[in-house]
C-alpha cells in the first residue's frame, strides 16, 4: 500500500535550470494537487487536476507547468528555476466522496 509518493525527496539546482518533481498515487483518486510551503504562508496551491488531462491554476501558478496524462501521475515542472522557488513542495490527492486530501512526504527544493 504505497499511497502517494514524491520524488526526489531533496533536490538542489541552479537558477535557470528546468526541474521536474514527480508525484504518484496508487488510490486512483481523481483529484491531485501541488502545494508549496513557505515560512509564514502555510501551504499555497500551485496547480490542481480534477482528472486526467484536466488541470487548472491555483493561487501561485507562475513559473510552474503541470500535466496529467495518467490518473496516477501528476508531475510539476519548473521551466526556469528561480531562487524564489526554493520551498518544500507537497503533492496531494483526494476522491470526490470524502473530500479529504492525502499528502505525499514532500520534496525540499533549493535553487542556488
Amino acid at each position, binding site marked *: 500500500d504505497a499511497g502517494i509518493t514524491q520524488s526526489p525527496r531533496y533536490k538542489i539546482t541552479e537558477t535557470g535550470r528546468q526541474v521536474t518533481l514527480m508525484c504518484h498515487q496508487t488510490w486512483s483518486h481523481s483529484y491531485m494537487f501541488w502545494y508549496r510551503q513557505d515560512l509564514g504562508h502555510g*501551504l499555497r*496551491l500551485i496547480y490542481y487536476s480534477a482528472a486526467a488531462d484536466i488541470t487548472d491554476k491555483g493561487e501561485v501558478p507562475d513559473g510552474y507547468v503541470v500535466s496529467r496524462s495518467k490518473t496516477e501521475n501528476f508531475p510539476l515542472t519548473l521551466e526556469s528555476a528561480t531562487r524564489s522557488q526554493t520551498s518544500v513542495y507537497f503533492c*496531494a490527492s*483526494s476522491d470526490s466522496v470524502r473530500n*479529504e*486530501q492525502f499528502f505525499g512526504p514532500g520534496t525540499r527544493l533549493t535553487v542556488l
Partner: protein
Amino acid sequence: AQTVTQSQPEMSVQEAETVTLSCTYDTSENNYYLFWYKQPPSRQMILVIRQEAYKQQNATENRFSVNFQKAAKSFSLKISDSQLGDTAMYFCAFMKHGAQGAQKLVFGQGTRLTINP
C-alpha cells in the same frame, strides 16, 4: 476569496494539559468543510479532524475535538491530555463544497505547538 487566519504563531503547554488552537476564516459560502492538519518534524501532513459546515455537532476524534461556531466563522481545535507526540505544526484549512474545483484547500499560516515533559 476565502481566507483562513491562525492568530497564534506558537504555543507551549505541559504534558497532560489541555490546549486550544484558534482558527478563523472568511467566506461567503454556506456549504464547506473545515480541517485541522498536523505536521510533525517529519514534515508529513496528517489529517487530524474534519467538520462539515452543515453539521451543528462538533467533530471529535479521541483526544481531539473542535468548537465550530459557524456564525462567528471560528473553528478552534482542542487537544485534551496532551502528549509529547502532539508536538507539531498545526494547520487549519477550508474547502468549498460543491462546484468544480471545490476540492481546493485554503490553509492558515499554522501554529507551532510544543508539548513539554
